[in-house]
């Protein structure tokens, strides 16, 4: 019975972490149709934006919830200006340029920081569930992911920025005609996606640590989640993360982490064959 509880918690955690690592990518892809191949490295930067300040004595929560999203978000705005903007409309070129950015960031991080795993213990301690113990931080990750998704929903649905952004993405010429500075909206949207990635990287850093190539362990999963989810940012990410996260973790419990990962990827490919436009391709047309 206790083992069942641990099992359920771990499945919920897998779903949450999948949604967490995907949501920044989903915002950028869903709203701008830009496939950001440097997404994994945005997560990596978010991780360092927590680990390094904490070593310098900064409070871990402040680093995680403020520094990481802010730093990576600002970086995203700069990247949009230099690399993404000249390539709008050239989907493949954007993929290649962001792939280049990804390699560049890995190279920079390994030159500057190396591969020394600092290691840290997740804050918040542990709880006892029957004969088992579970880290409280696991619950924190599940909770904060739900909070992020909710905040994003409200933000895109209810705020002026959300309205402008959605309008610009649907018809930029029209939005420009109405006096919207579409350049700013694109930059802000990319920045928002980057900030979410930074936040996600920061939240995961105390668990998995950070090394320059850590992005590679996230990137395939994030892509698959976003693409399986389909056109809508939130409903897509949430539904795909739920399905794939559950498949991944259940199989991992039954066998090994590797088989779990393969099951996730295979499930996604079958899904894409059945629903080429993703889970929400048909259901939530025009939603978020």
């Amino acid at each position, binding site marked *: 019975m206790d083992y069942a509880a641990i099992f359920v918690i771990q499945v919920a955690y897998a779903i949450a972490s999948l949604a967490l690592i995907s949501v920044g990518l989903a915002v950028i892809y869903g709203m701008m149709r830009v*496939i950001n191949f440097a997404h994994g490295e945005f997560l990596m930067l978010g991780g360092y934006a927590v680990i390094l300040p904490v070593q310098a004595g900064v409070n871990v929560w402040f680093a995680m919830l403020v520094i990481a999203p802010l730093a990576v978000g600002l970086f995203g705005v700069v990247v949009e200006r230099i*690399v993404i903007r*000249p*390539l709008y409309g050239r*989907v*493949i*070129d954007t*993929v*290649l*340029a962001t*792939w*280049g*950015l*990804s*390699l*560049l*960031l*890995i*190279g*920079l991080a*390994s*030159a500057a920081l190396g591969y020394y795993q600092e290691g840290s213990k997740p804050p918040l301690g542990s709880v006892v569930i029957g004969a088992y113990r579970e880290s409280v931080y696991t619950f924190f990750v599940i909770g904060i992911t739900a909070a992020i998704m909710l905040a994003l929903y409200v933000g895109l649905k209810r705020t002026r920025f959300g309205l402008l952004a959605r309008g610009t993405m649907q018809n930029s010429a029209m939005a420009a005609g109405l006096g919207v500075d579409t350049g700013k909206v694109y930059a802000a949207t990319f920045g928002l996606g980057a900030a979410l990635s930074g936040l996600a990287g920061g939240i995961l850093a105390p668990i998995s640590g950070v090394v320059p190539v850590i992005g*590679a362990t996230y*990137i*395939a999963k994030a*892509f*698959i989640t976003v*693409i399986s989810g389909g056109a809508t940012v939130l409903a897509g990410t949430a539904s795909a993360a739920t399905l794939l996260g559950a498949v991944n973790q259940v199989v991992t419990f039954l066998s*090994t982490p*590797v*088989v779990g*990962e*393969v099951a996730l*990827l*295979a499930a*996604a*490919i079958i899904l*894409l*064959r059945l629903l*080429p436009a993703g889970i929400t391709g048909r259901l939530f047309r025009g939603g978020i």
Partner: protein
Amino acid sequence: MSNRASSAGGIVIAALGVAALIGVPYVVELFTLVDVAVYCILSILALSLAFVWGYAGILSFGQSAFFGLGGYAYAMAVINLGESTVPVLAGILVPMIFAALLGYFMIYGRVSDVYLAVITLTVSLILYHLINSTSGPEYTIGRARLGGHNGVPGLPPINVPGNASAPLDYADTFRLSLGALLLVYFTLRAVIASRFGRVLVAIRENELRAELLGYDSRRYKLMAFTLGAGIAGFAGVLFASWGSFIGPSVFGIAFAAQVIVWILVGGLGTLGGAVVGTVLIQYLTTWLGQTKALPAMLGLSKIDPSLVLGIVLILFVLLVPSGILPTLRKLLRSRQAAASA
């Protein structure tokens, strides 16, 4: 005019190639042969993607997976059989069959360009994870262990067909690799000039129109994808034989990225560009693995190769999007025009 120029170019390339095949082993030292051989082999891989992406318009971002499958198929077969003729064929056929299945899935499913790119890359990563988790002794094909992360070391090289006790030496390996490169290059040129190739280009330009004219674009694309996989697999066979080793890193994201950088740097939509890009970039990364001069100049302890690859990729996309070869041709042409004016 341009046709005549390009066929003249072809004759020059062929002549130089044959001369190199015969002459080079007598004049350069052994190691240079070994080195040039691997450049030839990787160029064959690049050519396969240059064809699939540049002419058939299929964004196969996981092209290196077919290279890896070819290498692994060769490795498994040659360890079991000893003689290399069947393993070489296996190394070509296995990736082709795999590509035919995967391609059927994607192309007949009418998966869009970008999704196809992500799916091929993901399939490559799946293979990476799968192969990487086969270290245990239970993963054995006949007498050959898949080896997981260890890879499959100590492979017997390709031998003179039918005679397992006559493995190719370094000079032979060089001749085989260069010969294979020339063969693949000219075969692809012929394919592109054929009706099949011309229809492929038409499909790349406008798939809908090609279908409205009665061409079954999916069949053409699947055939091109499968052919490309066979060529990549062939390169994988040569690579495994060359290094006596094949390991799971050929399925990794870094290697997949490299192949794309080669094409992009050389010039998408050309065959020669693929070779130029491969040689340049491969030379650069190998050199970075051993140089001390450049980092010392920049005051760094060392330079991470991915840093350089990243910068090259970004700069090319932003500044030289058509790649080296087409840009050079354009420059040359405009200079000729200026001179004749």
